[in-house]
């Protein structure tokens, strides 16, 4: 481990510890907001693996979040499955979908990749609507009271309790960050960055670029599904909205705002945007206007994002 690596590792530990400690002082409203932000940030952290480290811009990442939402939510709603197995099923659904879709979409690149991922996400969205009697379609299903409590060390944990929400959300974010950080720092992560910079050359050097891209795609899909499963169980709601195009654009927006290709960027971007959208939706029903305005301003004025700017100005060692 070089000094640079050590510094980066300490920064991540400090951020995670800070978030864990924050719950002691947050008032109830912000307590729930930060819990939501952490789950959604995990979604964006996974997306950043594709966009930031592999150079693949997907417009269909919502399908994996939705796979987690339905994979975990439906068994709870219909079979009264416990939290642990439900989460595992959610992640499994996302990984399986990502393995299949990845094998297909990674045969394309550039504009075609973008449109194909969007079309596949649309298939998932429409399928959720088509099976309306089971999935609840647009209306969705409310899981409140259906998730049996988990007993751990003599404690009874329910998803309705704010402390459980916060700490599970923290766990999901920590897992997503550690997996990404581990992958990015590994030789496979170096290969991904090489693919981003010049795929042809990387292939000439003897790397199986398809396999590396597939690995990144499946990991990102799995992380998205983990976030989706946690979101469904913690906030007791399953619905087709999570597969809609807006939920494919959100991780793109969060990642760009926070900083493409920085491990902490997605967390920063999700935090800022979730609060901005919350404030805007209190003012007007046209609150998605800020989503559009931020996207345009970012691409014109701050293409590196917040953490990208920090890395350039102050902390060049930022991973």
């Amino acid at each position: 481990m070089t000094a640079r690596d050590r510094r980066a590792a300490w920064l991540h530990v400090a951020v995670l510890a800070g978030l864990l400690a924050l719950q002691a002082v947050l008032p109830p409203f912000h307590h729930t907001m930060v819990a939501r932000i952490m789950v959604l940030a995990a979604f964006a952290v996974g997306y950043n693996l594709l966009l930031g480290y592999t150079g693949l811009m997907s417009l269909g990442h919502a399908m994996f979040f939705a796979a987690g939402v339905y994979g975990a939510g439906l068994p709870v709603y219909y079979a009264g499955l416990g939290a642990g197995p439900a989460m595992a099923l959610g992640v499994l659904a996302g990984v399986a979908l990502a393995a299949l879709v990845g094998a297909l979409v990674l045969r394309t690149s550039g504009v075609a990749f973008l449109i194909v991922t969007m079309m596949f996400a649309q298939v998932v969205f429409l399928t959720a609507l088509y099976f309306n009697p089971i999935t609840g379609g647009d209306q969705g299903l409310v899981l409140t009271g259906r998730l049996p409590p988990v007993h751990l060390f003599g404690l009874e944990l329910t998803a309705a309790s704010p402390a459980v929400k916060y700490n599970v959300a923290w766990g999901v974010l920590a897992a997503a960050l550690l997996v990404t950080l581990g992958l990015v720092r590994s030789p496979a992560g170096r290969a991904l960055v090489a693919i981003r910079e010049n795929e042809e050359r990387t292939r000439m050097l003897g790397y199986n670029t398809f396999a590396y891209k597939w690995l990144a795609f499946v990991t990102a899909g799995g992380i998205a599904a983990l976030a989706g499963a946690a979101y469904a169980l913690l906030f007791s709601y399953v619905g087709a909205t999570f597969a809609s195009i807006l939920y494919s654009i959100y991780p793109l927006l969060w990642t760009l705002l926070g900083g493409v290709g920085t491990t902490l960027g997605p967390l920063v971007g999700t935090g800022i945007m979730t609060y901005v959208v919350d404030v805007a939706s209190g003012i007007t029903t046209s609150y998605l206007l800020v989503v559009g305005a931020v996207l345009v301003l970012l691409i014109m004025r701050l293409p590196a994002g917040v953490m990208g700017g920090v890395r350039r100005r102050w902390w060049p060692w930022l991973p």
Partner: protein
Amino acid sequence: MIASGHLFLALLEGLVSGLVLALTALGLSLVFGVMRIVNVAHGEFFMLGAVIAWFFSAALGSFGLALLAAPLAVGAIALAADRLILRPIRYAPEATIVATIGLLYILQQLVLMVYGPYARPVDAPVYFRVEFPWFGYSGYKLVVAILAALLLGATWLLISRTRLGLYMRATQQDPDVARAFGVPTERVYAASFALGAMLTAVAGALVVPIQQAHYLMGLDALLLSFMAVIIGGLGSLRGTLAAALLIGLVDGVVSVFFSPTLAKIVASALVALVLVGRSGGLFGEGAT
């Protein structure tokens, strides 16, 4: 006799929606072909065309004037977007995609703010029925089909016979060489972007008496145009045209006999698989 009547109705509906889709998709295809950018906000120009047509026909009491005013207004908006957003980022492919996603939400939400979440109809400017052996058919829909076909023909002439068309084709083939021969490529880009938006806006305005104007109507237009452009081969105008008609007809027939959602699922999956298998599309020779 009933079944053949159904089929005839389905084909007729398909032809009308196919021609409208052809106008919409041609705009997207033109922008992609000449400028090499994907305009994700394209569907919003369709929606703007419809909403502005509603506004003018309510204010002026004449749908004919609205049909002229809507594309002009949308063309002006497109020129402004090109000048203020796309030109500063130099039409870089990925940045343009992000910027046009932003533009999509800006336009859509501004319309929601000003026009509201309503679906508003406009009375058809002409009202007559064409009697077929099995059923009477709305004469306005046939007018829409004829107008769409005429506009497609006019666009074809514009591209193949005029100086602007020549500039467009030259820029599409090689922007650097075109610039070296004195083609003002930046102005060609602006003109192509505005022309693409205007074609789509006319399509949006034409369907208002049939479908009503709503602030969320752009997404379907965008997805269907994407399908037409992909199946027709990225950047090939002729392919886009053929694919739009094909999609319209197939969609018309399938929707009569099956659930429209199921039809959309199958269509989206097929389009995705076409693009995976042949990135040039079914007709084109691979422009990506």
